[in-house]
């Protein structure tokens, strides 16, 4: 009998304890992110880490593109459209000479001519760059800060059109692998994954900058 009554008592009060706890929980702040609306919150400090090697939206840094057409040729779904044209100076005419692009780890880049071997970067050494943009300056950076050094090839073509239809792209990444100047990359920030559109035509990205080739 005592066991029976204490059973009821324990049952009642443990249920009440549980209810008090859930009631307190009701006034705790929400943890849900209203993602597309609380946009800035997501952006802050790259809140959503994009893993390295993420396959997202393609981006072409056209300043480095030599219009070699390799990406358009390797693309399995043919979604890169390139139109190009030779400059009027005849055979051998160049729009610009080759130089190096030093990509730093904080996503900045320095364009210039690197002294020494650019293929191998030893750790804890200084790399001297004779900058071409703006001209005449020399900059020294520690090789620990350098992500990679790319050769910016001579440009011998005007680029009239460089379109990527991201609605067609299947994110195989082949185009980024063949690109000799590593100017065609996949964006590894939040922007690389947030580009949904209501109109499919808006997914056709045009990267060409005609003012570069004046």
């Amino acid at each position: 009998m005592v066991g029976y009554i204490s059973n009821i008592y324990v049952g009642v009060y443990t249920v009440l304890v549980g209810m008090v706890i859930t009631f307190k929980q009701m006034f705790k702040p929400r943890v849900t992110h209203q993602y597309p609306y609380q946009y800035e919150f997501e952006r802050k400090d790259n809140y959503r880490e994009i893993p390295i090697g993420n396959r997202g939206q393609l981006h072409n840094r056209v300043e480095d593109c030599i219009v070699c057409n390799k990406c358009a040729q390797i693309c399995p779904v043919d979604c890169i459209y390139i139109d190009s044209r030779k400059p009027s100076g005849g055979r051998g005419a160049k729009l610009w000479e080759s130089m190096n692009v030093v990509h730093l780890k904080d996503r900045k880049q320095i364009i210039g001519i690197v002294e020494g071997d650019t293929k191998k970067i030893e750790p804890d050494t200084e790399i001297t760059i004779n900058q071409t943009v703006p001209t005449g300056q020399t900059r020294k950076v520690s090789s620990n800060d350098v992500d990679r050094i790319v050769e910016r090839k001579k440009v011998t073509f005007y680029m009239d059109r460089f379109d990527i239809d991201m609605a067609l792209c299947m994110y195989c990444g082949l185009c980024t692998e063949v690109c000799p100047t590593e100017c065609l990359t996949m964006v590894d920030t939040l922007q690389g994954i947030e580009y949904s559109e209501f109109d499919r035509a808006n997914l056709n990205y045009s990267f060409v900058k005609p003012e570069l080739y004046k």
Partner: protein
Amino acid sequence: MRQFFGIFGNLSEVTVGSSKPLAGLLLEILPPLPAFLEEYEQLLAMITACGIFVGVVPLIPLVLVLAERKVSAFIQDRTGPMRVGPWGILQTLADGVKLLFKEDLIPPYGDRVLFRLAPYIIVCFSLAAFVAIPFGAIDLGDERYVFIVSNLNIGIFYILAVSSVIVIGIIMAGWASNSKWSLLGSLRSAAQMVSYEIPVGLSILSVIMVVQTLNMQGIVDQQDGGLHSWLIFRTPFSFIAFFVFFISAIAEVNRTPFDLPEAESELVAGFHTEYSGMRFALFFIAEYANMFAVCAIAVTLFLGGWQGVLPGIDILGGLPGFVFKTLFLVFVMMWIRWTLPRLRVDQLMNLCWKYLIPVSFFNILGVGIWMLIFGADTMDMKSLGPSLVVIVIAVFILLKQVFKGVSGTKRETTPVPSS
């Protein structure tokens, strides 16, 4: 014809004390009818009063479904539906419209007639319970008109009777679906509802002993005059009876922790597994209307009905007060749902037969003794003092234990082993 309708003749006149039902109010305030309809005016007033309830009651689930989702979200630190309309308030409407346009599937080899009939039976009898619940009152002249469709003399008995018919609809749904989950769910539901009718009936009985009437408006009339005259405080045993009633009511409307008939992890969705489209929505309407109905009954029987909180002052009285109290109980139901896990079948039956039913018998005995000693059945509140003392002491002991329990459940941080 006239003789036939004659039986409705004085339905709008049934009075308890000086109160008249809603049909009487309609006859009073609506313009007079054309001459050829005059002999049916009683009947038309009744039908209009019913129509008001049938029109309003299906809107209750619209609110409650959203409330349920919001409460569950808040308890789990989420936000709930936020997209449709401001703060997501139109979500249920959108869901309803979606369900309207869904295909109405009938499983092959099922019983087509019973399958179509079952949701209507369930909805009809859940709505039928609303007929005898007084929602509020208004004083016009020296008459008091109560918002009740039919002021039945056997009000609470009628409600118990019609709400038991729902179980037939559930069994029909389960049988006609020709699906093992539906059948198991409906059988569980039948066992559960039949078992829990008993503690519901017994705890209502302990109230009826005090008020000595079955008429719902009569019960409310006896709780006139403020918080202290509510039946829950009249004897310490009716205080227990309220909780017995509430627990069994939760079980009777098949809600967590007693939602075995629709246990998702075992039975997909229970007796309405095979239903789709608007028929499924009807089950939902019935479930939430039922929930509202049992809470309204609990308010009427124990928490003063539409009577106000303070004597003389009309705070929390009338229709808004009644709806507020009912919605509070509905909230408690949701709160319990998101606190407690589901019981096993044997635990469910244990709780009913080994705990609730003996406790309700004990209650009836106790109320009888209390009436003999203190006279709890009279309105002059002689019994109130001693009963309040007992209730306050019991609640105090319980709450002390509860807060000890709450502070004892602080999250313990396990020390990180240092290497």
